[in-house]
């Protein structure tokens, strides 16, 4: 569809990567691409907001300080309720993941910018980070008792092999669903925005009578933009909450 007439809608072109500063080391491509530049901008923005926000310490907080403190309390409450007080040692990891995903999602909504989390490689890297953290921490803390995660209590002995196999399988598909959820939400949202924007342009370029109809896809684009703002926050929250729940499995494998 995209390879035919050049005037056809091409919603996939917005996700293409291109190098800004080509860097090749030993035959491997370490170029600074638009994706890595946007990630750097997101990280600098997040660090600046948190550093300036947390640097005040006034009794009556300024707006930025209130924002930094509210986001801290929000993620701390999330970690405590999912993992208990023992899980607070993972708070820096969960907070970093939450803020990174949130800021990357929001930066992607700026017109003409790039959505970092709309690439499966980025979300898979984060999800695999969480997965291997869970496995390594679980085995290090509990040894072989970690595998009690796959043997829920109260299961009759004749069902145990089947249930254990199903539990292992669902554990191994966790990084898949964790990463694809964020990736697919961002991809679908930006494709939708692109397609409706394309409708506006197409109607404006059509005959005289159709130009007035361009208001309709324009209003739809505004509505979908509001929805995408909600989805940006929601998907960052869900990514972080699932991270906390998976970490709880590492810390308390006999919680099942």
């Amino acid at each position, binding site marked *: 569809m995209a390879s035919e007439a050049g005037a056809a809608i091409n919603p*996939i072109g917005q996700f293409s990567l291109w190098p800004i500063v080509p860097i090749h080391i030993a035959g491997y491509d370490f170029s600074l691409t638009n994706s890595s530049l946007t990630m750097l901008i997101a990280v600098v923005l997040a660090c600046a907001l948190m550093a300036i926000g947390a640097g005040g310490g006034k009794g009556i907080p300024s707006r930025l300080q209130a924002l930094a403190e509210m986001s801290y309390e929000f993620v701390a409450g999330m970690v405590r309720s999912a993992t208990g007080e023992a899980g607070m040692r993972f708070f820096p990891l969960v907070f970093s993941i939450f803020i990174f995903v949130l800021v990357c999602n929001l930066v992607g909504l700026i017109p003409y910018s790039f959505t970092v989390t709309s690439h499966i490689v980025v979300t898979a890297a984060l999800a695999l980070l969480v997965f291997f953290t869970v496995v390594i921490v679980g085995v290090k803390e509990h040894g072989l008792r970690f595998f009690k995660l796959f043997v829920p209590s109260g299961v009759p002995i004749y069902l145990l092999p089947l249930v254990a196999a199903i539990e292992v399988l669902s554990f191994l598909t966790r990084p898949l*669903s964790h990463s694809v*959820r964020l990736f*697919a939400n961002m991809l*679908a949202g930006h*494709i939708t925005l692109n397609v409706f924007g394309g409708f506006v342009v197409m109607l404006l370029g059509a005959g005289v009578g159709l130009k007035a109809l361009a208001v309709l896809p324009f209003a739809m684009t505004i509505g979908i933009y509001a929805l995408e703002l909600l989805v940006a926050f*929601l*998907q960052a*929250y*869900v990514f972080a909450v699932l991270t906390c729940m998976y970490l709880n499995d590492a810390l308390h494998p006999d919680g099942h």
Partner: protein
Amino acid sequence: MEAHELAQAAKYIGAGLAAIGIGFAGIGVGTLFGQFLNGALRNPGAADGQFGRLIFGFAVTEALGIFALLIALLLLFAI
């Protein structure tokens, strides 16, 4: 019809079929919010405390619908 056109037509049909799966996610999300409202109208004081779980449940249910949309998009644009 040459093989390439046949493959392209099959991809379009497959994308359309995959998009039907999104409707089932709609059923799930509607059920979720309906049950929440049902409980909230019986016990309004407990409703705000469970709002976080509602939003989380909504996101994971919606994700399955988005997985179906992803298959459709992959067929249209990537494969």
